């Protein structure tokens, strides 16, 4: 029977070599190759503000409920065209996600172009989608007794706002929403140059 390996150091060495080889083959090499994927034609890098918004998205863990990965399946057609490799060229950290407690957001900028809707929804999702289970992100906003000059007031539906005062946007909510607005799939037909 295979009881040969009685020197513990040879067990350590052999299993380390086998696993390191597999890790390079299945982890590092695919990572290296795919990291060089060129961007889809027409895809733009994020602006500074969009990038700041993306950082908030990452920091608040939106990915745990929202994918950014449209599959080539019938049920995913509502979210846009199937995602392609080049769509993720500027996406580090990647946000493909594994869970759809909420809908896919790959193309949310195209599907929901209203900034105002986004603000209201972030303040209290249930004020616009009855039955939503998304948390509210009230800390991305400020509540003031009354709006100052230049403030962007969010028209919260009655019953969902603060007891008194108005809700205004902050840099954070503006950044996040600018990121969401930037999530628009570029058309693949452009690639042919027609």
């Amino acid at each position, binding site marked *: *029977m*295979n*009881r040969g390996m*009685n020197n*513990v*150091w040879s*067990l*350590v060495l052999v*299993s*380390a070599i*086998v*696993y390191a080889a*597999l*890790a390079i*083959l*299945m*982890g*590092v090499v*695919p*990572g*290296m190759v*795919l*990291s*060089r994927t060129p961007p889809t034609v027409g895809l733009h890098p994020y602006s500074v503000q969009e990038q700041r918004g993306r950082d908030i998205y*990452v*920091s*608040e*863990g*939106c*990915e*745990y*409920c929202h994918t950014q*990965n449209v*599959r080539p*399946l*019938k049920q995913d057609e509502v979210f846009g065209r199937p*995602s*392609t*490799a080049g769509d*993720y*060229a500027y*996406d*580090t*950290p*990647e946000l*493909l*996600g*594994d*869970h759809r407690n909420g*809908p896919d957001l790959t193309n949310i900028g195209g599907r929901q172009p209203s900034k105002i809707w986004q603000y209201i929804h972030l303040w209290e*999702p249930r004020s616009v*989608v009855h*039955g*939503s*289970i*998304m*948390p*509210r992100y*009230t*800390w991305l906003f400020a509540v003031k007794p009354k709006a100052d000059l230049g403030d962007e007031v969010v028209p919260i539906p009655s019953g969902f706002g603060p007891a008194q005062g108005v809700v205004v946007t902050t840099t954070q909510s503006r950044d996040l929403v600018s990121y969401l607005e930037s999530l628009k799939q570029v058309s693949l037909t452009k690639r042919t140059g027609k």
Partner: protein
Amino acid sequence: MKSASLVVRDNAEPEDVALFSSFIASATFWLLLTTAVGLLLSFKFPYPDWATSPFLSFGRLRAIHTNGTFYGWASIALSGTAIYVAARTSGIGVSNKWLAWLSLACYNLAAICGTITLDLGINYGDQEYREWVWWVKVIFLLGVLLSGLTVVQTVANRVEREIYISNWYTIGGFVFTPILAIVAIIPAYQVGLGQVAVQGFFMHNAVGMWFTFLALGITYYALPKLLNRPIYSYALGVLGFWTNLVFYPVIGAHHFEFSPLPWWFQTLAIVFSVGMLVPVWAGTANFALTMRARGETVRRSYALPFIVVGVAYYFLGSTQGTVEAFRSLQTIWHFTSFTIGHSHATMYGFITFIAWGGIYALLPRATGKQPSLLATGLHFWFATIGVTAYVIALSIGGTIQGLTWAAGNPFIASVDAAAPFWVARAVAGSLMFLAHIIFAYNVYLMTLAPGRESDHWEPQKPERAATA
């Protein structure tokens, strides 16, 4: 679990007992904290407007739950038990104990820093199970290296001739994980889709090359020891070791089926997911045959029922994983709560139950202090019923969710459809959390509680060594 079981005390060195007890006490703390968080998460599904401060928000707490149960609870519990097993099977005390103490300090420090940074919204890009920022991961990696070194040195100094099969597995886990951690930490090849490939690789290697190897190693020790009978087949154990090592690293891409990762790369992962049936069934058969015709012993033991459930979930959860990997079923189940059911069938039903089995098997022998019989029974039944209800609820709920999407209904319809099953999960989760409180009480009885040593001792015939 009828009568107080007959337990003989190991003649472990007092320092080793203190070391083992400290690992288990730390692990228990993290179990309580991070499953309290899990419970809060599960109540946020029906009550999303509860606990809405940023520090208690779903997106931040979820990573605290997963990383805390992985690296605080399961890693510390399994490492501590693996070190103790290495000493027992080697017939000597733990070599270089200070390395093990330092390891425990690293593990705890990493879990503390990781929990705090995640709660502040500082993370490594929502990459599941590696959300801790790089320097926290490095502290954890040090913990793994130090525990691993302790185990390897103890086994190297053994008086027994052979390396017992359980040490093959635990040493494997300690060798693979640092390599995996290094692959996961280096950013150079993790840009865009490249990071997706590495993430798929990382996710299943973390569960498959770390927790699975340690838990199997502990089962290979505890089962023969508790049954007083040698493991059914050494050869099956060795077969399981090598097939696990070669197949597991290839299956990562099954986390991203239908994504833009190369199609053949996904297919390869699916094929090897089927190959995984070999180690899973070989291991399960080996354990089942070792237990054959010993139902009465199982019923009388504190520890064996946990191991039986753990082995059953290893079999069920992993086989479920293979089925889940097929493309036809991924179209329905991927992205749904079905996956969450699988995660808990495996990380809870398998890993956590084996950790408990190992603790109830070995801690009383180490300290000479028995847990409460009633409390152990309650712990067992609450946890078993809880996790089973959890998995069943989400398997059904997740399937309905996926079918709702396939039927082309508006998205919110899937939320409404899954809602009752999420409530069932919260109820099941409450039972599980109750079990953890009872377990913590038992850990207290088995370690710090004064005057429990002499109570229950009954004379017993000398045991045969598990390595026989």
